[in-house]
C-alpha cells in the first residue's frame, strides 16, 4: 500500500503538481505513515529523479522549479507532524536571501531560493530592497549558515560589499558565509569584496551553497 503511495508522491513531484503532492501528504497523515519516511521514500525520490534528468539535459528549469514548489507544498503539510513527534528534518543548512538595498530585481534570487529549498536548505527570503541591518539581523535571528545577496545594478552591487564589511566588523565571519549573484557580478568583484561564493545561475548556486556548508558531496 505505502509503496504504491510513495510512487504517487514521487510522481507528483516529477509532474510538478502542488495540489496532488499536498493531497498525498495529507493522505499519508490520515494513514498514520511516518512523516519522515513519507518525505524520504516518497517525495525526495521525485526531486532526485528530476534533478538527475536535469543533469542529463532531459528536464528543464521550469520542471525543476515546479518540482521544488510541489515539494515545498508537501513539506508544509508534513512539517507540523514532524514537530509533534519531536523530530526535525535533516537540513543542509540555513540561508538568508535578499536583494540589496536600492534594488528591486528579484527573479534570479527567488529562483535561487526555490532551488536551495528543493535541495534541502532552509531558506528565508527577505525579498527586495533590503538594508544590511535587516539581512544581518535575520541571519543572526535564525542562526544562518549562509547569507545570499543579489543585485542587478552596478550602483547597488556595492551594497554587497557593505554587508560583508559589516559582518567582518561584527566578527561574524567565517561563521556566516556569504554568496553573491546578479547580472553585473563578476569573478573580479567577488574576489574584491571577499565573498565566499558566487554563481552565475541558480543551479550553480546550489552547488556553491553545499560546498560552503561542507556538504558538497550531497
Amino acid at each position: 500500500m505505502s509503496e504504491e503511495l510513495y510512487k504517487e508522491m514521487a510522481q507528483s513531484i516529477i509532474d510538478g503538481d502542488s495540489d496532488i503532492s499536498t493531497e498525498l501528504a495529507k493522505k499519508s497523515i490520515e494513514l498514520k505513515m511516518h512523516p519522515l519516511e513519507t518525505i524520504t521514500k516518497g517525495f525526495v525520490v521525485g526531486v532526485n529523479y528530476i534533478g538527475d534528468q536535469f543533469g542529463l539535459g532531459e528536464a528543464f528549469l521550469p520542471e525543476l522549479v515546479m518540482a521544488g514548489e510541489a515539494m515545498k507544498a508537501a513539506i508544509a503539510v508534513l512539517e507540523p507532524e514532524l514537530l509533534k513527534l519531536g523530530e526535525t528534518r535533516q537540513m543542509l543548512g540555513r540561508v538568508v536571501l535578499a536583494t540589496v538595498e536600492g534594488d528591486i530585481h528579484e527573479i534570479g534570487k527567488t529562483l535561487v531560493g526555490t532551488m536551495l529549498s528543493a535541495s534541502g536548505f532552509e531558506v528565508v527570503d527577505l525579498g527586495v530592497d533590503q538594508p544590511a541591518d535587516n539581512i544581518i539581523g535575520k541571519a543572526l535571528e535564525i542562526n544562518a549558515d549562509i547569507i545570499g545577496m543579489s543585485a542587478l545594478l552596478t550602483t547597488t552591487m556595492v551594497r554587497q560589499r557593505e554587508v560583508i564589511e559589516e559582518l567582518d566588523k561584527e566578527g561574524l565571519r567565517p561563521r556566516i558565509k556569504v554568496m553573491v549573484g546578479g547580472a553585473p557580478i563578476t569573478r573580479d568583484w567577488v574576489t574584491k569584496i571577499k565573498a565566499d561564493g558566487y554563481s552565475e545561475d541558480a543551479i550553480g548556486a546550489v552547488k556553491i551553497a553545499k560546498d560552503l556548508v561542507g556538504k558538497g558531496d550531497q
Partner: protein
Amino acid sequence: MSSKTIKTISNPKLKLEVLTQEEVIKIHETTLQIIEKVGVRFPSKRALEIWEANGADVNYEKKIVRVKPHIIEDALKKAPPAYKLAARDPQQDLLLDGNHVNLGTDGCGVEVIDINTGEKRTSCLQDVRDIARIADATEEVAFHWVAVSAQDAPVEARGLHELKAVWENSTKHVQTESVYNVEEAKAAIEMAALIVGGKDKLRERPVLSLMQCTAPPLGHDGGSLDAALLAAEFGIPTGFMTMAACATTGPTTMAGNLVVGNAEVIAGTALLQLAYPGAPVFYAAAQTASDLRTGAYTGGGPEDFLFGAATNILADFYNIPLSMGSFATGAKEPNWQAGLEGSLSTFMASIVMSDMLLGCGFLHGSRIWSFAEMMLDCEIFCIIHKMMQGIEVNDETLAIDSIAAVGPGGHYLGQKHTRKHMRELFMPQFMDRRPYSEWETKKDDARDWAVSKARKTLKEHQPDPLDENISKEMDRIIKSVEK
C-alpha cells in the same frame, strides 16, 4: 568622406509582415485587458497620484494601478509620432520619423576586453571616454548609449560622470540608460542644458534622451519612473524598455510575452502623456527567450529575432518611435554565434524600420564590451544597410548596352558601365576574401583587423572639444550631487 557623416538606413525596399493587422489589434486589446484587470506596478508616489487624478484604480499599498482602456488609448494619442534627437553638432541630429534606422552603441556593460592587452577587466570611466571617442569617428554609430559602467566613479553620481565623458569625446546624441533616479536625472538635464544654452532650449534641441528599464513582469522601478517624469517635463525624449523574457519574466509563448512587455511599456508611456501631454516618448524593447537550462536572458536566437521585427509593428500601431535591442549576443568572444545573432537580430529589427538599434559592441549578454565586436557589428550594420536598399530596376541598372557590348563570352571588367557602378558593390572591411595561401601565412582574421581599426581610431581621432567652461560647469553640477 567627412568624419561627421552618419550612416543610417532609410527609404527601404525590403518589407516583412511579421504580424497581421488583426494580430496586432488582438495583442493590443489583450494588453489593455491585462492593464485593466491585472494591473501594472508603479512604485512611485508621484506616479500613483497622477494615475489616481486621471481616473485609474490605484492600490497604494501594493502600488498597483488598474486602468480603463480608454484612458490608456487617449493618453497614447497625445504622443508625438516623430521628432528629432539633437546632437552637440547639429549636422548630426537624428530623425525619429519611421524612415531612419539609427544605430547606437550598446550599454551598460560591466567588463571590457582591454583594447591593448586583450585581457578582460572591470570597466571604468576611461573606457566610457575611449568608446565614445571611437564611436564619434565611426559613421555607422549614430548615437551613444553609455556603453559601460564607470565603476571607478562614485555611485551617487556615476551616471553623470559617464554622461560628461561621452559629451567630452563626441558630438553625437547621447541616450543614457544609466540615470535612474530623480537626483541624477535633474543634474543630467542641467548638464544637457549647458550644451544648448538653457533648459528651455532642450525641448527644441534635446541633446540628451533617457531610456528606463521596466521591471517585468508588469512592473516599473520607482526611481526610473520619477526620472522619466522629470525628463518628460523638460521635453527630453524618454522611453521605457521591456526585457520580458519567455518562461521567466514573461509567458513562454511569444504572443503572451509581447503582451506583458507591451503592458509595461504602454502603461509607462501613457503615464508620461497624462503628466505632460505631447512629451516626446519612444517604445523600447529587448525581449527574448530565457535559456531553459539556466534561466538566463539569452539575447539571441530565433525568438529574439522575431521580437525584433514584431515590436516595431506595435510601436507603429501606437505611432511612436521604437528603440529596439539588437546585436545582443550570448557569445563569449567575437565568433560564429556573435556574427549570427548580430546579423539576424539587426536584420529583423531593420527591415521593419526600428528607429533606434541598440546596439553595437557587446559580448556575453551585454556584459562584456569588445572593441573588436563593436567594429564587426558596424560591418554587419553596413551589410544590412546595403541589403535594405534592395535591387534597383531601371534602364540604367538593366545595363542593356553593356550586355550587348560584351555579348556571349567575354567579361565586364573593361566596361564603362562597370566603372560607373562598381562602387555600389559592397566592399567589406573585415571579411576574409583573400587567397588561401595568404591566410595560411598570416593566420589572422576579422577580429584582428577589427581591433586594429579600433586602436588606430582611438589613437588618431580627435573629437571636437567640449567648451572648457561647460566642462567645468558640469563638474560643479556633478560635485553638488556627490555632496
